[in-house]
């Protein structure tokens, strides 16, 4: 007695067109994911410190703020805050764009623009801290 014909099995849950187009995992991205988490962990203490510092600086005038930022510990923590903040922000915004924007050209341009802006803003902020620190020392 012949066995009944087996139904066709789908072994790959991905369309042939998708495979031909190279859709799916790029086999990289773990480093990006991990860097987002590491910067997030660093930002927990840095952010809490910064909020407390801002509260203590309320009502302070420019010389008082400059003196505060010129303290070596504060200057170092500010630079760390700037680096971690912009690193984290541009990675997060990149993921948002990659998730929701399906236009490859627009997405690439937007991600590059965000990275450029993050670099420039971080450099400007770091130069400001450096000026406050070096002026006072």
């Amino acid at each position, binding site marked *: 007695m012949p066995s009944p014909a087996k139904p066709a099995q*789908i072994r790959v*849950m991905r*369309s*042939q*067109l*998708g495979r031909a187009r190279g859709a799916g995992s790029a086999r990289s991205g773990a480093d990006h994911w991990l860097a987002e*988490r590491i910067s*997030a*962990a660093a*930002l*927990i203490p840095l*952010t*809490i410190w910064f*909020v407390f510092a801002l*509260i*203590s600086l*309320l*009502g302070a*005038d*420019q*010389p008082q*703020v*400059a003196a505060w*930022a010129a303290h070596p510990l504060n200057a170092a923590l*500010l630079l760390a805050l*700037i680096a971690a*903040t*912009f690193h984290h*922000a*541009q990675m*997060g*915004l990149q993921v*948002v764009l990659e998730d929701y924007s399906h236009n490859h050209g627009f997405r690439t341009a937007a991600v590059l623009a965000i990275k450029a802006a993050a670099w420039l*803003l971080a450099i*400007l*902020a770091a*130069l*400001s*801290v450096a*000026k*406050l620190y070096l002026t006072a020392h």
Partner: protein
Amino acid sequence: MTDVRDALFVAKASDGRLIRRPVSPHLSIYRWPVTMLTSILNRATGIFLSVGTLLLVWWLAAAAAGPAPFARVQEFLISPLGLLLLLGWTASLSFHLLAGIRHLAWDLGYGFAKPGLNPVTWIVLAGTALATAAVWIAAYARLGG
């Protein structure tokens, strides 16, 4: 021409008829659970905080530039728009911080048990309100009431 992926949507109903496999419902179908709200809020607050870095940079650059530019930042910050933005950033930072800590716990493998999902979500939301209020009360007290 039909999409080649349609071949993967072919299924059999219980009476043997060939049907197009239903796809899972999406945003417009579900009643929003609170976990869905906090999920999208984490992204929204992240985007809003990214914009807020402009203020951080302006504040630092003005402090480095001198008393007059710094006075302009201070003036902006106590304007109605400045205070509203500060309130928004305080709340966003509180939420993104608490939700971020929760995300890190998830990444370490903790906090996936179903019974705790909604209570912890409400704790994050309540913590956001508490932290925001605490910062503004501390600021108010700092300025001498």
